[in-house]
């Protein structure tokens, strides 16, 4: 795979991923999203190793990270991203069902850029995903070395 997408969604639940993509699609952000199903895959992608060794250079402008995942969980992925000089500037937004203190503590200690609890009701969920997507992939100026903005659709 040699593509580079601007939003990396790391989410083990295909349903949650589908719901998130549905929400992003409603705001024309779906094409910008690469969905990976676990932490190990995400790290391979970010480090450009394994099956991602030949992908184009550059970092996503934001990583949307679930916490509870098999193999390497979100906290571990966050630790590695923030501990790696080449990756530490990538904005990471934790998106999780957990409002537990220990997860909040751990995430912020490791330097998470935002922490969003997935709302229970779909309407609220869609709204939350839209806000996160438009802010980080639109309004926010990403650090140098991030994936370039795709061609704006011509009017």
């Amino acid at each position: 795979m040699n593509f580079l997408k601007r939003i990396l969604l790391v989410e083990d639940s295909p349903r949650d991923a589908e719901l998130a993509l549905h929400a992003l699609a409603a705001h024309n952000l779906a094409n910008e999203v690469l969905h990976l199903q676990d932490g190990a895959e995400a790290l391979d992608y970010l480090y450009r190793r394994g099956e991602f060794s030949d992908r184009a250079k550059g970092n996503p402008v934001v990583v949307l990270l679930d916490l509870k995942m098999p193999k390497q969980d979100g906290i571990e992925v966050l630790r590695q991203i923030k501990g790696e000089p080449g990756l530490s500037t990538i904005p990471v937004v934790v998106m999780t069902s957990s409002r537990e203190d220990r997860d909040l503590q751990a995430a912020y200690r490791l330097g998470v850029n935002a922490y969003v609890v997935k709302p229970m009701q779909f309407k609220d969920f869609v709204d939350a995903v839209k806000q996160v997507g438009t802010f980080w992939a639109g309004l926010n100026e990403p650090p140098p070395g991030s994936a370039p903005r795709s061609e704006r659709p011509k009017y």
Partner: protein
Amino acid sequence: MGTSTQPSDSPVKVLIAEDSPTQAQRLRHILEQQGYEVGVAANGRLVLEMAPQFRPALIISDVIMPEMDGYELSRRIKADADLRNIPVILVTTMSDPQDVIRGLECGADNFVLKPYDEHYLLGRVRYVLANREFQRPQDAGMGVELYFNDKRHYITAGRLQILNLLLSTYDAAIQRNAELSQAQEELRGINAALAEVNRRLEQESRQREEAQQSLRESEQRLRSIVDNMATFVGEITPDGVLVDVNRAALESGGLQRQDVIGKRFEEAGWLSYSPAVQARLGEDIERALRGETVRHDMITRMADGALVPIDFMLVPVHDGEGRVVKLIASGIDITERKYFEKTLQEKNAALEAANQELESFSYSVSHDLRAPLRHIDGYIQMLVEDTASTLSSEARRYLNVITDASRQMGQLIDDLLAFSRMNHAEMHETQVDLGALVQNGIRDLEMPTQGRNIVWKVPPLPTASGDPAMLKQVFANLLGNAVKYTRPRDAAEIEIGSAGEEEGRLVLFVRDNGVGFDMKYADKLFGVFQRLHRPDEFEGTGIGLANVRRIIGRHGGRVWAEGKTGEGATFYFTLRPSAPAHRP
């Protein structure tokens, strides 16, 4: 008698013959005090040399002197025509009647008995001086021969001289007698005193004996106490040598008294199982010698070889000057305590593990149980979006029911999680203004009270001690319930107040005139997910009052309810009042 009165300008001269300078000095002093002029010669010969020039009115002579004694001196003077009129007083101990005869033989005029007192001597001197005039005319003395003690004596003395001598002898005898009587008297006194002393000594000795007896009894009593204690006790010298141990200590180690007394403590058997423990005891003794009371758990070896934990203590005993003179070692078998400690630790660990499990359970509940609900909700919404136009109204109603059900399930999960968290949440107790808490609680109910006619009765409330966030939750639940269950009332009345004290705690209440409840279900009110109404009557998950009870319980108080179906309900709870010092 004209010559016997002494003109003040010419003192009467007295010549003293005395070989002891101390005696001579004393005599001179006595006489000079009385105005006599005194000459001193160390022996008879010197008197004879001095007398012709000195011309004394009186010679006082000691009897025993070197070269020439008092008798010889007296004899020479009386034989000398020029000196014979000078009276001679012999100072003698008069220890022998022979002395009287020798005095007469030598012609001495008078005697002074040694030892003499001042008045006696001066009386003698004055008497002799006063009588010397009479002596001269009766000069001629008839010689008399007499035998005394198988000796022949030839006495030529005049009658006056003899009289004088005898008188002075008699006087001396009386004096001696008086002295003897006095001595006897004193002796009697001394004897009486001695008897008294003796009596006291006997009494003291009796008392000492009694004291010793009671000391022995007291020692035996103490010994029996010490020996019958379960505590092991030993006395150690500052060098670490055992001086005494009680029975419990001996029996614990299966040791005999004679085997341990005089031995070093660490070598006496209890601790010899481990050089490390022996070394530790050595350090303990050093510390105790510095005045420290040492106390720690230790392992001792029992008679059967079992190693048993004891609470060991080493206490220094000081003397009056602060020196450590001995150490008292004691030990209490703490096998049971250790056992319970261990059991408690295990129980604690188990509890900890259970808590941990519960926590990870609630964690997974929060994460895993919510996700499917979110999915249900999400996919139904997507379904509705995609098929809105083709669905029958009945199908849409079904989807609404599914959505409602999943939301209700989500609410139950959230409430259960909050309830579970309440058990683990740390409490931060401070002074809480209940009045302000109630006002905030009412303000937060703005939404559900919109369009309602509610009469709030809130008198001034006291300050209580508690966790502000938790107590806020209590009022939110109780006030929320009051608002909810008065929904059919116009006007609703809700009263918050304080109803005195119970065992030093404030009793507070929230009363409403709502639908009330049947008192036979009063117990069920505070159970988790317990409800007395159907969800279509009054919404809710049944966790609010369970939370209230849990919070008040964590504050050490209690909560209860009174009510009647259709006539409202009152919820009571107790809280610790804030400390008086903190009261505004």
